[in-house]
C-alpha cells in the first residue's frame, strides 16, 4: 500500500500520509482548522468540536481531529454553516465560565481569544452564566483558575500520556464538569505531581499558569511539550497518538 494518499480539501487536491487524521492532513497542507482540545503529541478526544468538517457522502459533521483521512475523501473545512457553528461553540465557551480577558495572565496569548478573533466573534449571544469557581493557588509554582478553563483536557492527557503522573482527571458531569487534581484534592497536596509544568504549557487559556505573572504576561511554551510528546509518544505520522 502506498503511504501517500490524495484527498480534496475545500475543492483542492492535496497529498496526505496514510494514517493521518483530516486535521493533520489539513495542517500539513497549511489549511486552517480551529481546534482547542487537539494537541500535537497527545491522544485525540474530539471534545471541543471546533474542528468539525463536512465530508462528502457523510450526512453528519465529523471531528477532523479523530477522523482518519482516506484516499479520495473530499473535505470541506470552511462554509457559512461551519463558521456559524464554530462561532456558537466559542461563544458557548465564553459564556460558560468567567473569561475576563482584560485581567487574565494569558490575555493576548490565548488560543480561545485567538480563535474568537479569527472566526469573527464580536459578542456573545448567550447569557453569561457567571458561575462561582475556585482558583487553586496551593501549588508552590503553579495555579489553576477554573474560571478560564474550557475543559479541553489537554492537561489530563499530557500528564497521563507524556509525564505518566496521572494527576489530573475530570470530575462532575454535564455543566458541572471540572478538571480535578487526583481525588479532588488541592493541587499543592497532590502526591503524584512531579511539578513538571507540562499541563501549564499545553493549556490553551489562562486556566493553568505559572505563579508570579501579571495580566498578559503568561506565554506558554508549547513547542517544548510537543517535542517531548513526540519523543515519548508512539506517534502517528501527523502527530497524534
Amino acid at each position: 500500500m502506498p503511504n501517500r494518499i490524495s484527498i480534496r480539501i475545500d475543492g483542492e487536491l492535496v497529498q496526505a500520509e496514510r494514517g493521518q487524521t483530516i486535521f493533520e492532513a489539513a495542517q500539513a497542507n497549511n489549511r486552517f482548522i480551529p481546534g482547542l482540545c487537539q494537541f500535537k503529541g497527545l491522544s485525540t478526544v474530539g471534545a471541543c468540536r471546533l474542528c468539525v468538517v463536512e465530508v462528502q457522502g457523510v450526512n453528519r459533521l465529523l471531528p477532523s481531529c479523530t477522523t482518519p483521512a482516506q484516499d479520495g475523501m473530499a473535505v470541506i473545512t470552511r462554509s457559512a454553516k461551519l463558521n456559524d457553528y464554530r462561532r456558537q461553540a466559542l461563544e458557548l465557551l465564553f459564556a460558560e465560565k468567567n473569561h475576563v480577558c482584560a485581567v487574565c495572565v494569558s490575555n493576548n496569548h490565548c488560543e480561545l481569544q485567538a480563535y474568537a478573533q479569527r472566526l469573527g466573534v464580536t459578542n456573545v449571544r448567550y447569557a453569561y452564566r457567571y458561575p462561582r469557581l475556585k482558583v487553586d493557588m496551593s501549588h508552590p509554582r503553579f495555579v489553576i483558575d477554573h474560571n478560564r478553563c474550557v475543559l479541553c483536557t489537554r492537561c489530563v492527557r499530557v500528564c497521563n500520556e507524556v509525564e505518566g503522573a496521572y494527576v489530573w482527571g475530570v470530575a462532575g458531569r454535564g455543566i458541572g464538569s471540572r478538571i480535578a487534581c487526583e481525588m479532588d484534592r488541592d493541587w499543592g497536596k497532590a502526591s503524584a505531581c512531579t511539578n513538571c509544568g507540562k499541563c501549564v504549557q499545553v493549556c490553551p487559556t489562562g486556566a493553568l499558569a505559572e505563579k508570579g505573572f501579571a495580566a498578559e504576561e503568561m506565554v506558554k511554551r508549547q513547542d517544548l511539550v510537543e517535542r517531548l510528546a513526540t519523543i515519548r509518544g508512539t506517534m502517528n505520522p501527523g502527530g497524534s497518538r
Partner: protein
Amino acid sequence: MTKAPKARLATAWLDGCSGCHMSLLDVDELLLTLADRVTIVFGPLVDAQHFPESVDVALIEGAVSSQDDLRLAQTVRENSKFVIALGDCAVTSNVPSMRNSIAPTRLLERVYIAGADTQPGVPLENVPKLLRAAIPLHEVIKVDLHVPGCPPSAAAIAHVLTELLDGRKPDLSAVAKFG
C-alpha cells in the same frame, strides 16, 4: 456648495473605567476632522443634562450594572439610530462582571462594612440600585455594532467613526480583537 448637516453623536458612560472615552480622545488629529462632521450632543465630554432626541450615533461604554445604567441604556436606544457597544465592558461586561458571583447585598456589605476604614454602612440613598449582575449591553438593548477592546484602540474608534460617517458598515477584523 452647502455643507452636509453635522451628524449628532452621543456617548454614555455606564459601569466602566472611562478608558474607552480616553481612547476616543486619543484619536489625535482626527478630532479636528470629526469636529467638522459631528456634534457631540450628550456624554461625559459635554455639558448636557438630558439625553436628546434623534441622535445619529451613540457610543456606550461600560457594563449595565445598576438601575440607572439600565434606564440610560434604554433612553439611548429609544433616541438613537445607531448604537455602538464600545469596549469590553459594554461588549462582555468584563471587569465589572467579576462581582457577579456574589449577591449584591453581600457585595455591598463586604465593601462598605467589612472593608470600611471609617463609618461602616451600606449607602442606601442617592445611589443607584445595583442589578443582580453586571451584564453586557446587548442583553438589555439592541446593539448595532460591537467594538471590543480594553480599551478599543484609538485607531479602531477612528475607523468605526469614519466608516459610519461615510455611510459604510465598519469592518473591525483588522483593528479590534475579541476578549
